[in-house]
C-alpha cells in the first residue's frame, strides 16, 4: 500500500513540476519556445494518464471529508490527525473515568446494602457469583 502511495506521489510531483515549468515558459514566451511548450503539454497528458492508472489501484482508500476542509482553509492536514488522536484520547479517558466511578459506586452500594439487608445481599452475591463470568468478578468490588 505504501509503495502504491509513493508511486502516486512521485507521479504527482512530476506533474506539478511540469506545470510549473509550463507556466515559466508561458510567462515570457518566445517563438523558439513553442516546441518546448508543445512537449510540456504532451507531458502533462501522459502525466494525467499515469495518475489515472494509479487511481485504479487505490480505489479502496477512503479519505475523511474533514481533511478536505482543512486543506481548503490552507491548514496542515496533519492537524486533523492530531485532533482526532487527541479527541480519541480524551473520550477514552472520559469513558474510563465513568467506568471506574461506576465500579466504585457499585462497591459502595453493595457495602451499604449489606449493612441494611445482609441476607438479601448474600443471596444476590451468591447468584452473581454463579452467573458472573470470571473477568467481571475480578474487576468488581463484590
Amino acid at each position, binding site marked *: 500500500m505504501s509503495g502504491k502511495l509513493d508511486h502516486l506521489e512521485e507521479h504527482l510531483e512530476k506533474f506539478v513540476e511540469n506545470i510549473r515549468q509550463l507556466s515559466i515558459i508561458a*510567462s515570457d514566451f518566445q517563438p523558439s519556445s513553442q516546441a518546448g511548450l508543445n512537449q510540456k503539454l504532451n507531458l502533462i497528458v501522459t502525466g494525467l*494518464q499515469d495518475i489515472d492508472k494509479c487511481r485504479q489501484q487505490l480505489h479502496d482508500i477512503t479519505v475523511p471529508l474533514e481533511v478536505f476542509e482543512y486543506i*481548503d482553509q490552507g491548514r496542515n492536514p496533519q492537524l486533523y490527525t492530531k485532533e482526532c*488522536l487527541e479527541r480519541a*484520547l480524551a473520550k477514552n479517558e472520559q469513558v474510563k473515568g465513568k467506568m471506574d466511578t461506576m465500579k466504585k459506586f457499585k462497591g459502595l452500594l453493595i457495602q451499604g446494602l449489606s449493612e441494611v439487608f445482609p441476607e438479601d445481599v448474600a443471596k444476590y452475591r451468591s447468584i452473581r457469583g454463579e452467573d458472573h463470568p470470571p473477568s467481571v468478578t475480578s474487576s468488581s468490588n463484590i
Partner: protein
Amino acid sequence: MEEEDGTPEKDCPMKTTSARHQDSAGAEGKMENFTALFGAQADPPPPPTALGFGPGKPPPPPPPPPGGATAATAPPGADKSAAGCGPFYLMRELPGSTELTGSTNLITHYNLEHAYNKFCGKKVKEKLSNFLPDLPGMIDLPGSHDNSSLRSLIEKPPILGGSFNPITGTMLAGFRLHTGPLPEQCRLMHIQPPKKKNKHKHKQSRTQDPVPPETPSDSDHKKKKKKKEEDPERKRKKKEKKKKKNRHSPDHPGMGSSQASSSSSLR
C-alpha cells in the same frame, strides 16, 4: 326514516331472527315505541344471547406476542431475563463481557503510540505550505478565494470525456502564444510568498529585493552591518541559504532530480 314499503319485516335484514325476540312483552312495547319514533326501518338488534353467542363471556385473551412466551411454555433459560422472575425484581443477566472496553488504552491497543508521539508530542505547524513545502503557488490561501477548493470539486465534479488522449498537431495549433512577458496581474501566481525568518536573516533578502536609494546615514549603518556579516558562522549560513534558493530557480540544471529527491521530506 321510513321505508317505501311501509312493511318493516320484508326489508328488515334481521327478518329471520324476528321470531326470537318476541319472548319478552316488555321488550316488545319498547320496540313499538322505537319503531314509532324512527319509523319501521328495522327492528332493534337482538341481544347477543338471542343470537346464540351464549351468556356474556369475557373477550378472549389477546394472542401472545411472537417473541414472548407465557409461563407455561417459556423455555428454561428465559426465566432469568424476564422482569419479576427470580428473587429480585428487574434482576437480569449481565451483558457478555468483552476484552475491549473504554477502560483500556485504545492508542496502545491499536499500536498508535508512534503516531501519537509524532503528531501530539511535537508541535505541528499550522500552514499547508509546511506540509507541502515544494508545492509552488500561494497554497496557504483559502480555496474559496480563487474557486480552487476541493469541496467544490466534490460537490460539482467536472464532466470527464473518458480517456486522456495525446494532443495532435492540429490541436497544438491552438496553443500558439503571443511573444512577450505576461501582464503583471498574472505574474505573481507562481511566486511563493517569502517565508518568515529571524530578524538577523532578513538581511540577505535585501540583496534580491529592489534596493531603495541609499542615504548617507543608511550607508554608514549598512557598513557596520556588513562588518558583522564577515563572521565565519554567518558566512556558512549565507552559503546554505543561497544553495537552497538556487535550487528553486528555473535556470538550475538539476531541477527535475532535486524535486524527486525532495519527496523524502514529505514522508
